[in-house]
């Protein structure tokens, strides 16, 4: 059927067509932005962290008695806990830390070269106080220097040497070698590969980390045990951990036992939640659009039985009638999609004012249009099939 006749047919039902086009345009806009957000969330969850996510467990805990939260009782508790966890079958390595990686907020401070503070300053860098096995547990490769082997107090006369990640070393020292250089928190002992420390607005800063092998003096904010297991023992170790730790000392509160993979998902749970809700809403919107297309085609068929009968009597094949009805809906979907691109841009702008959402890319409208066309085709298939069953004899009723 020529395009102008399809337009003419749509214009015969101005109000109904207008309502359908508005719906299709809005559905298109929401679907497109949902896909964009889902894609962004997926990218965040799959971004490289530099950490063995599946095989590392993180236990967040805190002593419930004041004395156990202070050195030296805390030091003794840590030694006993590490020993007991090491003895669990399947544990490869275990370490303590004042805070774990893959967190939002925590114990942070500024890191800079005291000789050129303004130029080298990195603000809000996560400061880790850890046991020597921290690097083994997280499988962090040493890029330069040597890792400290024993715990040295961070506020002693000779403070504990600093191990920094590559991104942080680049920020503070540029292209110059970092080993042996003095930082405001101590001398640099080693540079290790980047790992995801804390969530930041800047994608580079998530890899800024400063680690010192040092005893924990205080656990008022709690601490973490990081445990790497063999691949097939993660669940068994996770099950055993609470009992083992309670046996060492019952005066502790265990907040959580999670793999680092779970910790990463938790870090982006808000984005995941919004992407899930928008995806669900997109499905509902598609369903609503399908109902609309179905009802539009069905009503059209009922209303124009005689017209279709005349066409059949004048020689139009069933296939032609079928294609004609589908073409009408494809045309309205196409028009809805064109208007939808504008709506999608406006919605994208509105959403970007309240959440972080990337701008639209060229291929997304094409993919969205394809999904919408598929749904509309499925929805109008049955009414179009009914139209083909109208007998040419129906034409005689028009006389």
């Amino acid at each position, binding site marked *: 059927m020529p395009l102008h006749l399809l337009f003419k047919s749509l214009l015969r039902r101005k*109000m*109904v067509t207008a*309502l*359908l086009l*508005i*719906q299709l345009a*809005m*559905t298109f*806009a*929401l679907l497109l*932005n949902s896909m964009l957000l889902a894609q962004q969330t997926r990218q965040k969850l799959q971004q490289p962290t530099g950490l063995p996510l599946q095989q590392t467990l993180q236990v967040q805990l*805190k002593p*419930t*008695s*004041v*004395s156990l939260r202070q050195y030296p009782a805390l030091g003794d508790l840590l030694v006993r806990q590490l020993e007991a966890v090491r003895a669990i079958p399947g544990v490869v390595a275990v370490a303590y830390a004042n805070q774990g990686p893959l967190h939002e*907020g925590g114990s942070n401070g500024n890191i800079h070269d005291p000789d050129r503070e303004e130029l080298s300053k990195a603000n809000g860098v996560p400061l880790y106080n850890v046991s020597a096995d921290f690097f083994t547990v997280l499988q962090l490769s040493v890029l330069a220097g040597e890792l400290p082997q024993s715990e040295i107090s961070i*506020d002693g006369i000779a403070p504990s040497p600093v191990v920094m990640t590559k991104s942080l070393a680049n920020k503070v020292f540029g292209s110059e070698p970092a080993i042996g250089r003095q930082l405001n928190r101590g001398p640099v002992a080693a540079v290790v590969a980047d790992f995801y420390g804390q969530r930041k607005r800047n994608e580079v800063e998530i890899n800024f980390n400063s680690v010192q092998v040092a005893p924990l*003096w*205080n656990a*008022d*904010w709690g601490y973490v045990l990081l445990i790497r297991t063999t691949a097939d023992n993660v669940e068994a170790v996770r099950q055993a951990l609470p009992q083992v730790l309670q046996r060492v000392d019952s*005066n502790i*509160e265990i907040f959580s036992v999670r793999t680092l993979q779970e910790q990463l998902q938790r870090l982006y*749970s*808000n984005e*995941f*939640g*919004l992407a*899930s*809700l*928008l995806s*669900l*809403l997109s499905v*509902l*919107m598609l369903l*609503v*659009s399908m*109902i*609309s297309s179905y*009802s*539009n085609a069905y*009503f059209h068929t*009922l*209303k124009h039985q005689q017209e279709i009968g005349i066409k059949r009597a004048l020689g139009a094949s069933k296939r032609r009638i079928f294609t004609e009805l589908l073409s009408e809906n494809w045309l309205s979907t196409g028009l809805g999609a064109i208007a939808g691109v504008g709506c999608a841009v406006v*919605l994208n702008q*509105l*959403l970007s004012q*309240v*959440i972080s959402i990337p701008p639209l890319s060229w291929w997304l409208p094409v993919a969205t249009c394809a999904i919408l066309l598929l749904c509309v085709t499925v929805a109008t298939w049955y009414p179009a099939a009914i139209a083909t069953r109208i007998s040419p004899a129906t034409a005689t009723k028009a006389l």
Partner: protein
Amino acid sequence: MEQLFYYLKVSWFSVKRAPLPYMLTVLILSLGLGVFFSNATFYYRINSDPLPAKSDKLFFPMMLLVPYQCSNCKPPSVLSYSNIAKLNASDIPSAKAAMYSAGGYLRLNSEQAPTPVNVRITQRDFFSMFDVPMLHGSIWPDNQARDEVLLSKATAEKLFGRTNVTGQQVLLDDRLFTVIGVLDQWQMLPRLYDAFNRNYLNPTEDIYLPLESGYDYNYLSNTNSSTFEDADYRKLATDGRTKAIHQLQYWVQLDTLAQQNAYRQFMANLVADEKAAGRHPSAEANQLVMMRDIVSYFDGESGDIKAFAIVTLLFLLVCVFNASHLSLNRYLSNQYEFSLRRALGANRSQLQVQLLVDMGLMSTFTLTGAAIIAYGGIKLMNYLWPANSLFASWDLQLMLALAALTLLCSYLVTLYPSLRASFGSLNKQLKE
């Protein structure tokens, strides 16, 4: 009344004649309203004013009283003990209280397993400023250090199994404290006195401790603290009181515009004095933020809820357009019946009343459907965003808003079809 039943009967027959299009119209409208309302519940509750009579009188002062130079810096969101001492010198505010929160473990005796509790460490004006209701006992007579605590009603019931426990003793982090008061049921939502870092979404605390005792016993803030000089945060009793360890939130009550202006001037004078003494190297950056603006000042508004609000509004619009579309098709199918009634003598106003009854019936079904879908939507949102779960409840105002919105949407959905059915050309309609 008889006429109304007749109209209802006619409406019901019309529904039964073509139940599928009717059900689809109701379903689509219920979906749109239900989804919109589930998010609107959170949006409304999170943005509500917990103290409407006072929210324009309570202020959060902030100053750049730090020992370093910083240009174009916002003042820290928390103050040091010595900053508070300087601000406390003013008698302009009707009430003033410094505060922070910490974690602790509470039990009745050393044999009992400890219960983790959230502790608000504060001063006596806190209770009058935020309209905290007392059930038993009283608050501290002054702001001195004392081993006396106040418990929330839930904590008293959990610990003792009753609420009248004034004079009883409890172990908080292995130290003995006397309970001098129990609060009545109180949940300030949103909890705007602790707005930084979206803490306003959290429930109110379990136990209340004097600020001076909190410093003496070295309770560290569990939400927001910063150290701006070489100071040992483990020594709150000494370094905490003299050095730049910032962890205190500070609220003042300024009832009149004159008080507010006077307090701004007081803050400006304080900066000038500090500058003269060499303790304020930066430019003045004083802030006096009203309680109702505190969340937006800290950039803590819930972006996800806002984004979803935009999208659910869009979805509601789509559903209204869709339901109108379905409704129009349904009315056009029934147009012959309307025309026949008009031909038999029914006037337009009678047809309009019939259509209003249709709308009423549709609103009833839609409201029921929307409430069920909204309930499911709230459960789903609680699962996906557990941090907002305190804001999931409905009140009468919200329910009435849902009913009004349902009526409006149902009216919009039936408006055009009813106009078309009632005011079209009778001859043309009968020919069709």
